[in-house]
């Protein structure tokens, strides 16, 4: 539990708490980006270098911008006047607190968790590449398919409908 580990943990949790509690939506998105970079720092500490960089590239680089664009497109950049939480918010908080206490109890005194920390595994990009191409080649292809389908689906859903009066003033 090195000092750096605790710092990144606190940064991530603070980022997550602010992402969920701030009134202005754009601030939430930026706090979320801070939380994601905190998580990326934790990955680097757990010697998962490739995943850490991929996390920055995918989440902080792409998804944060995507969410921010969505916020602008739905014109919710300004903080709403009325209350920000849904009606039954007390129940939600209670359930999540219960989930956390249960998980925490399980983590703290379960015997199945290995106590000693093994040496840091040296995973080079070549090992990741070989694993991807040999053992995990099927999931790789399926992920490619899923991504293309998602992209096309997203474009079709968000496409602006054909405006009826498309050809105003065009010479017949």
């Amino acid at each position, binding site marked *: 539990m090195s000092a750096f580990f605790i710092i990144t943990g606190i940064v991530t949790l603070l980022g997550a708490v602010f992402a969920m509690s701030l009134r202005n939506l754009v601030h939430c998105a930026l706090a979320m980006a801070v939380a994601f970079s905190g998580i990326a720092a934790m990955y680097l500490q757990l010697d998962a270098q490739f995943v850490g960089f991929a996390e920055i590239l995918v989440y902080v680089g792409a998804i944060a911008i995507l969410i921010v664009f*969505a916020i602008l497109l739905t014109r919710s950049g300004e903080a709403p006047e009325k209350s*920000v939480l849904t009606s039954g918010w007390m129940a939600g908080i209670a359930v999540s607190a219960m989930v956390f206490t249960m998980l925490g109890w399980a983590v703290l005194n379960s015997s199945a968790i*290995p106590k000693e920390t*093994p040496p840091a595994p040296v995973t080079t990009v070549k090992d990741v590449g070989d694993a991807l191409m040999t053992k995990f080649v099927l999931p790789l292809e399926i992920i490619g398919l899923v991504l293309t389908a998602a992209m096309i689906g997203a474009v079709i859903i968000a496409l602006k409908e054909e405006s009826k009066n498309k050809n105003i003033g065009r010479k017949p």
Partner: protein
Amino acid sequence: MTALQGCLLISALLFAIGFAGAVTRRHAILVLIGIELMLNAANLNFIAFWRFGPHPEVLAGFMFVLFSMALAGAEAAVGLALVIAIYRHKKTSNLDEVKELKG
């Protein structure tokens, strides 16, 4: 309180925060951010167990996180496209008012 338990606690707390946000917040995009946080908490668990697990050279947890990240990206894209489409129809992104199934 080993490093692994520290990681697991943090990811559990992260999951709880994401869940609380997704459940209580009114705005559709905030729910999506909550879901993203929950996904990330799960990924953190995978990497923690991969790192402190018995034989990390198997790279199973590692790969799982890579694929879950790609999937989270796709999910975020489709989710936000839905939110934009709903906003364009109903001129609101407040989840309480989006109740009708028709239209």
